[in-house]
């Protein structure tokens, strides 16, 4: 799989979230899919839970509806810095890809802080139009500790 296309997919993902265009985020996934936010330790010890767990595009949409309409939190946004993707396996159309990330959270009052680092473990394949989309994105956070709350997807 062409590394440039994976870089573009990751860049589009980060740009959508960082520019608060959350409604476009579910469109980067196939349906069904798996999006999960977990930690390196849970992964290492075989624990399946995530703090976010969505196995359909509908569940991703519900995440966004909730953060827009229902959930209450102090105004904040993210800045993603995403590393270069490494294709670990490639079979038929599906590539398994790992990409490191760093997310800075910018609060209402201007405070900027390192909010999360980790690795995206992805399964990626083209959709019917040939655009690369996530079959799976497991967000493996390096630390097991989340400050205050996680409203916006990582």
């Amino acid at each position: 799989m062409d590394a440039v296309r994976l870089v573009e997919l990751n860049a589009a993902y980060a740009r959508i979230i960082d520019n608060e265009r959350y409604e476009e985020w579910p469109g980067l996934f196939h349906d069904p899919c798996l999006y999960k936010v977990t930690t390196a330790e849970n992964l290492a010890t075989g624990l399946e839970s995530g703090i976010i767990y969505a196995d359909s595009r509908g569940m991703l949409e519900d995440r966004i509806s909730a953060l827009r309409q229902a959930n209450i939190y102090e105004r904040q946004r993210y800045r993603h810095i995403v590393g270069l993707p490494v294709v670990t396996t490639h079979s038929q159309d599906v590539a398994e890809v790992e990409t490191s990330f760093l997310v800075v959270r910018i609060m209402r009052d201007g405070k900027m802080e390192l909010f999360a680092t980790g690795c995206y473990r992805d399964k990626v394949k083209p959709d019917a139009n040939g655009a690369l989309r996530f079959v799976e994105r497991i967000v493996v956070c390096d630390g097991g500790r989340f400050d205050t709350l996680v409203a916006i997807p990582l």
Partner: protein
Amino acid sequence: MDIGHHEPTADGQHGGWPEDSLARVPYWVYQDADNYARELQRLFEGATWNFVGLEADIPDKGDYRTNHVGSLPVIVVRDADGAINCFENRCAHRGALIAFDDGGNVQNQFKCIYHAWSYDLCGNLRGIAFEHGINGIGGMPKDFRRERFGPRKLRTTTLGGLIFATLSSDTPPIEEYLGAEVLGRLKRVMNRPIKVMGRFVQALPNNWKLYVENVKDTYHASLLHLFFGTFRITRLTQGGGVLVSPDGGHHASYTIDKAEDAQTTAYRDQGIRTEKQDYKLADPRLLDTVEEFGDRIQLQILSVFPALIVQQIYNCLAVRQVVPTGVDSMELRWTYFGYADDPPEMTKRRLRQQNLVGPAGFVSMEDGCVGGFVQRGIAAAGEQVSVIEMGGHGAESQATRATEASVRGFWKAYRHHMGY
């Protein structure tokens, strides 16, 4: 924050407790460093049962986990007889942590890495490196008595797979400590072997009591947490109430559904229908719930004084441990679990419903920030009071959730232990 002009005294007269009412709480209790130190000593290290882990985490001999009782670091370990021991995670020699990982297996002994002093699985000091020196020179004095030194030992007890520890010899048996009503509600959930599904830590910018009060506050749930309301899931048919233990410290709040609403399809049909807006769940499987306790209680939040919460929200089960880390900071340690005999579809259901709770939970996210809002709001109000009067002034069980009875219960137990 420095509010050093408030000098606490043994009777809590700080500016003092404003009046002899459970419905008024002075804000200095969330701010004062001396009061915080007194809490660690009198609550966490006092005559209370503190949650320190799950039996499921340490099934075999030598399995251990590290944890905290307030600020006290502890080791919880299963010994050769299958018993569970808990002792201070502090080497008798120079005070270093004896175990510095989250857990593991140690076979027969712990060995401090600093000078290789070793401890058996009961926390007894067993080995001292170079105790007799080298070639007769150096080493420990001949009259050194090993048995006089060692980390402090805590008594342990287990209940439904939960492990509790106490430093005090006065703490009553756990069943008596909880009282019959709350005990029954705890056994309802912890009714058979569990399996841990995930662990997460949430760092909260507030005094630990603000979170514990929030958990006990049945009044806020439908007002702060708009997820259910926005998606038209809350129903007027729901009944519920709150049980408060006689000492006030423990509680169980519950939501019970009418029989005709208990089935999944009725839940979906009614819950997802919108009235004013077109908000609805795109994927209603989030709330695809099955009745697993046979009592139509959809939601039960239970607390054990001072710092444990056991939750059942539909099929989403978790324990939450409150760990104070300073006057205005705490950790909330989440352990999500299911039962050891869960079939795969139940595991999937729990994984989906876990979206409701935790640091990113649809219905618990706000609890992560609201304590910080209080902590910031009261910054200059140490001598002012909180008004906790919904449902009256008492701390008895009530058949409604529009009450702050269990919050007042917390303060009843708090003042008892603190001597206020």
